[in-house]
């Protein structure tokens, strides 16, 4: 059995993404692929998945040339888990999605129920199987997506940053399941920016740079791993928000309730909690996108009584899905809109903007269509246009998802600088703690259906 690429070249317009690449992966091996964001890792996985049939070169997965295979035959050889959990479902419920997939693969009717159940049991999502997919959290969706691939019995499993939006317990759980698949003979290729947890899992680490991919040694990889530390945090005594007797639910499901909580104190607050506990929903309540019971006051005024347009100039949200943020077509137009509307134009002279773009490695993208940027570039642009707005409070929902190591460091540093100049207060939902913890003032945890501040984390 072989999985390999020989002499593959791929360009977007006149920009070469992959240049005459030949690479081969060992059978039933666990491979980690790393590299800066926007370098073409997702594209590489899509090539392997056979999404570019017009390609120069040859793509072999599981001993079969996949780039010309119809989708229903290809699925038996290659399965892919996408970065965006919303990209992967065509049906309303997990069970329907499994049935749809098995029907596509022409599994006989009498075996569909059993095979779907086997996949559900393997990933352990029995309690989710008949819920509506669009009410599931990001981590739950990824579990469902994995179950579909288990049902397809693909011999090669490609994972495109599947853990970018999910909590550590879910991430560890999914990685364990993936490792189990490898033990059963599946070849695993995973792209991830968060390197923790892979040192015991990966057989081989690959680095993508300069339009090609090379293996890196174990010692080289170890140098990139984060070090463990102990962090102390303050507990706020004042906050822009005061929540009293707040209760938030989705449908019939109660997410959390709060008796009394101060939120968005000057500085940076990190909000963590397992998937599906309601972190994003809290942000939606704070920005009036979601109804709630109880009271939320912003600067002593009940937010349900404030005029929405003027309130949203004070409290803004960086959406988890970057495309929701965009209002214009190109990078320059997006920047121009924010520069025109910012509360403090004096802080955003052209040199200052250029310097930030440089730090974010976003220079020279001016005329690119925002929807065609890579996942990481989209995130950085989205964040930057909201920083320019300088709303007094900015809520950030997974701003680091899909960013490479360098970008995460830059973003963390930029947020700290802006917070130190008392220009904006940040509340950040994130699962990538390594770079954030050193710059955070307050650590807020959502668990057991309520929120509380934590003073120490080790």
């Amino acid at each position, binding site marked *: 059995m072989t999985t390999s690429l020989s002499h593959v070249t791929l360009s977007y317009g006149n920009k070469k993404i992959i240049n005459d690449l030949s690479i081969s992966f060992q059978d039933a091996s666990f491979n980690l692929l790393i590299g800066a964001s926007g370098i073409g890792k997702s594209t590489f996985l899509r090539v392997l998945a056979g999404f570019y049939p017009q390609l120069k070169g040859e793509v072999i997965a599981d001993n079969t040339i996949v780039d010309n295979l119809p989708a229903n035959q290809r699925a038996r050889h290659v399965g892919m888990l996408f970065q965006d959990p919303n990209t992967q479902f065509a049906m309303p419920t997990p069970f329907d999605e499994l049935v749809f997939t098995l029907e*596509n693969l*022409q599994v006989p009717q009498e075996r569909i129920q059993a095979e779907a159940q086997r996949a559900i049991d393997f990933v352990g999502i029995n309690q989710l199987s008949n819920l509506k997919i669009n009410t599931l959290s990001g981590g739950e969706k990824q579990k469902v997506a994995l179950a579909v691939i288990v049902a397809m019995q693909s011999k090669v499993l490609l994972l495109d940053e599947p853990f970018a939006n999910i909590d550590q317990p879910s991430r560890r759980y999914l990685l364990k399941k993936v490792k189990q698949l490898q033990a059963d003979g599946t070849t695993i290729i995973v792209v991830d920016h968060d390197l923790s947890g892979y040192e015991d899992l990966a057989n081989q680490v690959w680095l993508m740079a300069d339009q090609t991919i090379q293996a890196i040694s174990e010692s080289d990889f170890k140098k990139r791993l984060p070090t463990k530390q102990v962090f102390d945090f303050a507990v706020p005594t004042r906050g822009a928000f005061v929540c009293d007797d707040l209760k938030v639910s989705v449908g019939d499901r109660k997410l959390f309730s709060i008796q009394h909580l101060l939120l968005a104190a000057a500085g940076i607050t990190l909000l963590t909690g397992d998937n599906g506990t309601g972190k994003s929903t809290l942000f939606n309540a704070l920005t*009036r996108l979601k109804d709630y019971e109880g009271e939320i006051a912003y600067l002593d005024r009940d937010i349900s009584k404030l005029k929405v347009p003027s309130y*949203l100039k004070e409290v803004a949200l960086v*959406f988890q899905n970057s495309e929701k943020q965009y*209002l214009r077509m190109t990078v320059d137009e997006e920047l121009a809109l924010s520069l025109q509307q910012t509360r403090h134009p004096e802080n955003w002279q052209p040199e200052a903007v250029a310097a930030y773009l440089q730090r974010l490695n976003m220079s020279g993208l001016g005329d690119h269509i925002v929807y065609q940027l890579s996942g990481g570039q989209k995130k950085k642009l989205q964040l930057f246009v909201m920083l320019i707005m300088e709303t007094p409070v900015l809520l950030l929902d997974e701003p680091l998802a899909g960013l490479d190591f360098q970008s995460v460091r830059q973003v963390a540093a930029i947020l700290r600088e802006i917070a130190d100049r008392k220009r904006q207060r940040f509340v950040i939902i994130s699962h990538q703690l390594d770079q954030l913890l050193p710059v955070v003032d307050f650590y807020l945890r959502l668990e057991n259906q309520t929120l509380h501040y934590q003073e120490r984390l080790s």
Partner: protein
Amino acid sequence: MNAMNPSIKFILILIVSLEITVILDYRVNLVVAGCTIIYLLASRLSWYRYLLLIFLPIIPMLGAWTSFNTFGSREMAWVMMTRILVYVYLGAAFSFTTDMDWLLDSLEQNFHLPTVFIYGLRGALSFVPRVKQEIKVIRVAAMMRGVKMAPYSPQLFFKSILISMRWSSRLSTAMISHGFTENAPRTHFKKVVIKKRDIVIASVLLVVMQLAVVFL
């Protein structure tokens, strides 16, 4: 399941509706409306829907009555007024009682419509309930950038089209990566059959209508 196969029901209602357009006898209209009312009553809809069915046709019926009575003949006015009633009830007999998933399953399995069409429709139907929230999010995203979008704003329109295009390409990626192939054979977990009883009932109803046309 005891309900009639949804494609057969669809075809029956389609034939009846077409025939109604060329029949100029209000008594036939009343016979069809009567049969439809019996079916709707037997279907145990909610009170809200029954009230809707009583009050919805009133204004268009009065409109048809007055305009045809004033500018045409009284005979014509009766036909047009009852025709509106028939169309409202036939429409309700289909849309209030048909499970869309079942209809699409049946169209795929019994009538072999292209699967791309079937699953495209399924996707579109699941997208409809989300449209309202998506539009709210667009407007909120705009307000956060100091831009106010009116409900009729071309920008809002443009952005919604963009979102649905992104969504449709995502849907097709999702389908393909889960093995969906255009025109390829698929197996079916829920087999949909057309029972003989359904065809007999549909034929009997059609015959009754023809008898009404001939003898009334």
